[in-house]
């Protein structure tokens, strides 16, 4: 197994952990953390392909990762604001109890 394949398998494992957490846990914060871990796995893929790819001096992988980190930070801020709004409405952040679409 080459080093690139090891990187890709590793990022697949991290993605699987994040997916499992996002599907299994009922706390909205933990679901959000699982999604963040999946985003990190995707970033690892970009860096791995940039590292072993043909033209690293163009820096495409690094640039994509920088923009992905910026979008992920915005997503975390909005997601946690939604968690706080959910808590204000139903005094709980369990997703099973968030059955009411109407605010």
């Amino acid at each position, binding site marked *: 197994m080459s080093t*690139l394949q090891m990187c890709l398998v*590793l990022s697949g*494992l991290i993605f699987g952990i994040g997916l499992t957490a996002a599907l299994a846990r009922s706390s909205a914060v933990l679901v959000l*953390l699982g999604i963040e871990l999946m985003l990190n796995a995707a970033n690892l893929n970009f860096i791995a392909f940039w*590292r072993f790819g043909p033209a690293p001096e163009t820096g495409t992988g690094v640039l994509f990762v920088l923009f992905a980190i910026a979008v992920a*930070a915005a997503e975390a*801020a*909005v997601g*946690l*604001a939604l968690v706080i709004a959910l808590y204000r409405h139903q005094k709980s952040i369990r997703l099973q109890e968030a059955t009411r679409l109407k605010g």
Partner: protein
Amino acid sequence: MNITLVILGTVTVVSGATALSLRNIVRSVLLLVVSWFGIAALFLWAGAEFAAFAQALVYGGAVSMVVLFAVLLTRRNHLDATVPPPPPGRLLGALIAGGAVAGIIAATVIRTPFELANDEAPSLPVRRLGTLLMGPQLAALLVAGVLLTAALLGAVVIAAGRKDDKEGAP
């Protein structure tokens, strides 16, 4: 086999899996910071210094603190930051789904022959990165800035709520 990659990957995967299976959310977040720093170390190993520092600052510094604040603002009482474990049926389904995705990715990757172009880690100086960001990628940089501003303003509006909201009213 690359020893550094194996060690960093093991630390990242083990801390991430442990973090997301704990009952106490505060401990989960603190352990997940280890996992995020592990990913930053992997970026550093691959030669992407700027992305590694951005990852460490944004995730280890900013996102972890925001998540901790959200946990502290939304817990049931002052001493309790724990959540009940998932029911066995849902846990089993999630494990099957996550394991299937990871397994399919791993099997596909191992069977695919890749042609590696570089043996040594490439270096991308920050100066070159800055030139790229300020030159060909300028439009994307501006869009990212506008997106961040809009998202953070929206987050403040959503989290602050309305003044006439009655306490506990749906």
